[in-house]
């Protein structure tokens, strides 16, 4: 058999410590092993299976599911170059070629000395610093061949907005100082609501009109209420920081700049629904965020904000940090639960919904990072004040991540209804280098393209709905007249084909067929009938897929067919 190093003492110790907890420790154990050996050797996988009581075949299935785990030796340092739209439009394709050429390897092939491997990766949340690269655990922004090998400072996002609520502290305080956090109003909301009966707290959040900021936009208060009403314990509170919608980086900036806000939001949400334990699931590629939040959790625990009898309220709550391992689908709430439970990230059939049958089949509330920051804000200023921000149907401040061919890329906190045109031209300085706008991708890969003549759309729930669009995660990617749109569409097709979990047929097969057609289109080899094929594939995925990934996998591409048919080679070859 191939290279199979013996079980390291480090891993053995880790397994001895975590044996009792069983399968839910599978993904952490595998990530641990991956770090030690740069892959998962069979002997280690067997030891993990024996310790955590997981069938061996299942362990292999899990390894194969996650991009950051490998069953074969790879290389010491992975150079992961983002190829999703924001970075693709800023030359990441070229950078992949340059890096491979420099190292004398193909994509996915290790250098002979086993030092490096070059991989294409999905959105790293460095869209405003495109092209983005993850070198080992270090993030590199505005990456060039030189910067890949001599990484500099961790890239930070510019934050715009006046006044700032959600982003008021990020970048202004030491993110790991609870003192500075509290000087600027941190934990105020928590202190207020821990004195309230949970029902009143839920009413307050319901009354605030807050809707989820992860993409689906479900009313937060309603979600909490349906979980609080279930009389079954334990209950769980999960924070979804699997931010990976291409073009979105606001959650990363929040976690890195103001981690205690998220912890505060989690404690409040847990108190509201009666959850004693929380999980914070952070995507595997967000290595820096992981370090920050991990330290913040430790500090919060030490200073009495987590654990037993929080701030003398009698409420007990602890948070466990979990890392993803490279799977976009794990941002889907039920796939995220499966991942925490040590399984492949397959989304579950709904109903039942998480509020009654969530993590470990127990009642669970799962909220996005920005949603939880809003929760802390509502509790601090009250729902009446909060409602004055935003619009009637879209309450509260909202974060937009703007990237691409734009003068001032960054995170924009918007507190008054604004059109897409004003956001791009008034706030973000317009298209770079005085170029003409070609299209805007609103809502990420799962969103839609907006044509230059549609920019008057109001960026509210109602406004976007009327225009047949969706705010999604608030990602705004701007493309100028020079964009190779066929390349961007090809990239989107590749993205979904790579990230489909493979569970239901429409998405498993449809994302592949879609990618094949877009690949032909890029190469100028489109076949007669390709548009109809694509339309059938998209209709099938949208109408019949099991989860949100499949249901939106054709959304952006379908919108491009509508607004810019010239992006598609439609010259019909004569049948003669």
């Amino acid at each position, binding site marked *: 058999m191939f290279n199979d190093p013996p079980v390291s003492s480090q891993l053995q110790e880790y397994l001895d410590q975590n044996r009792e907890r069983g399968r839910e420790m599978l993904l952490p154990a595998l990530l641990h092993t991956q770090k030690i050996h740069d892959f998962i050797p*069979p002997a280690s*996988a067997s030891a993990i299976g024996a310790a955590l009581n997981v*069938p*061996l*075949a*299942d*362990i*292999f*299935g899990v390894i*194969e*599911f996650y991009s950051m785990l490998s*069953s074969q030796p790879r290389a010491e340092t992975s150079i992961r170059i983002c190829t999703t739209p924001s970075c693709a439009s800023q030359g990441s394709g070229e950078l992949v070629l340059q890096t491979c050429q420099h190292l004398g390897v193909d994509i996915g092939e290790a250098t002979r000395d086993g030092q490096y491997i070059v991989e294409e990766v999905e959105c790293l949340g460095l869209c405003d610093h495109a092209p983005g690269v993850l070198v080992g655990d270090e993030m590199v922004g505005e990456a060039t061949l030189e910067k890949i090998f001599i990484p500099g400072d961790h890239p930070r996002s510019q934050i715009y907005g006046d006044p700032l609520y959600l982003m008021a502290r990020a970048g202004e305080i030491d993110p790991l100082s609870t003192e500075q956090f509290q000087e600027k109003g941190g934990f105020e909301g928590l202190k207020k609501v821990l004195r309230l009966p949970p029902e009143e707290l839920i009413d307050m959040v319901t009354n605030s009109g807050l809707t989820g900021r992860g993409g689906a936009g479900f009313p937060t208060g309603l979600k909490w209420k349906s979980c609080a009403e279930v009389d079954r314990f334990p209950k769980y509170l999960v924070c979804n920081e699997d931010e990976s919608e291409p073009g979105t980086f606001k959650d990363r900036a929040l976690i890195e700049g103001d981690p205690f806000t998220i912890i505060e939001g989690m404690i409040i949400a847990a108190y509201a629904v009666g959850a004693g334990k929380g999980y914070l699931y952070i995507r595997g590629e967000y290595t820096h965020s992981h370090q920050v939040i991990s330290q913040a959790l430790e500090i919060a625990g030490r200073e009495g904000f987590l654990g037993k009898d929080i701030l003398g309220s009698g409420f007990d709550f602890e948070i466990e940090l979990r890392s993803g391992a490279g*799977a976009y689908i794990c941002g889907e709430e039920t796939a995220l639960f499966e991942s925490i439970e040590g399984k*492949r990230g397959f989304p579950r*059939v709904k109903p039942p919904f998480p509020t009654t049958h969530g993590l470990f089949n127990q009642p669970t509330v799962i909220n996005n990072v920005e949603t939880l920051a809003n929760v802390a804000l509502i509790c601090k200023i009250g729902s009446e004040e909060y409602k004055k921000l935003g619009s009637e149907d879209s309450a509260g401040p909202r974060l937009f991540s703007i990237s691409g061919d734009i003068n001032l890329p960054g995170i924009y906190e918007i507190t008054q209804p604004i059109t897409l045109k004003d956001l791009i031209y008034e706030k973000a300085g317009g298209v770079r280098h005085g170029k003409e706008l070609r299209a805007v991708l609103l809502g990420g890969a799962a969103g839609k393209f907006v044509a230059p003549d549609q920019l008057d759309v109001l960026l509210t729930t109602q406004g976007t709905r009327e225009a047949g669009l969706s705010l999604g995660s608030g990602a705004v990617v701007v493309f100028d007249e020079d964009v190779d749109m066929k390349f961007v569409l090809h990239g989107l097709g590749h993205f979904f*084909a*790579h*990230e*489909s*979990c*493979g*569970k*239901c*047929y*429409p*998405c*498993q*097969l*449809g*994302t*592949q*067929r879609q990618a*094949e057609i877009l690949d*032909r289109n890029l190469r100028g080899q489109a*076949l007669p009938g390709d548009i109809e*094929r694509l339309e*059938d*594939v998209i*209709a*099938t995925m*949208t*109408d*019949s*897929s*099991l989860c949100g990934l499949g*249901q939106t996998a054709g959304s952006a591409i379908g919108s491009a067919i509508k607004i810019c048919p010239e992006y598609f080679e439609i010259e019909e070859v004569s049948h003669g």
Partner: protein
Amino acid sequence: MAKDKTIQLTIDGKECRVPEGTTLLEAARSLDINIPVICLHEATTSEGLCRQCVVEVEGWGRLAPSCITPAEEGQVVLTESERVIRTRRTILEMLNASVDLSQSAALQAQMERYEVDPNRFPGAKKREREILDDNPFYIRDYSQCILCWRCVQACADDMQYTYALAIGGRGHDSHITTFFDVPIPESTCVFCGNCVGVCPTNALQGKTEYLLEKGLQHNEIRARRRQERQDKRRSS
């Protein structure tokens, strides 16, 4: 839960009364309406994978997989609407482009029913793999595998509790595998045969049947088996 509660709904214009908890698929069957299915098997857990059984429920935004959707009071259901037919035909066309369905009579019949163009997706990536013939009991021909998960489910909690099989890869590259892809005799397989029994195509096939189909006679197969046993004894 009151077992005797019944639900009234309309399927393809016909009124129907079924016990609470009945799926739309079962309700339709009670009216002799034949909804096609691919992944569904009575002995394995329904995961709603193939979506071939989707139906249109009035007022719902998306099509509903009838095998796992419980009937609700007053529902109006269409089992062969234009949207439904488009989905079924496209799924079959996409599946046929990836997988060798030629030996599955049931799928061939569905393809005929929905007027599938067998060459709808030219240049499509096929899930090809050479036949795995690594044990005396069954062969694995994954170029015929439609990923219905039944073998994995039968090997695990639905029947045998043996856990020899798993799903590897992701998306279109998903495939059935073992621990580090080891040959079946090195896996935890106990050769119960349940996986072969539930396989809807010939992806898993009894070795004897496979050899007979290849044109071998029973006496030739017996001779081959004897030889294999002798070889094994000699090498061990």
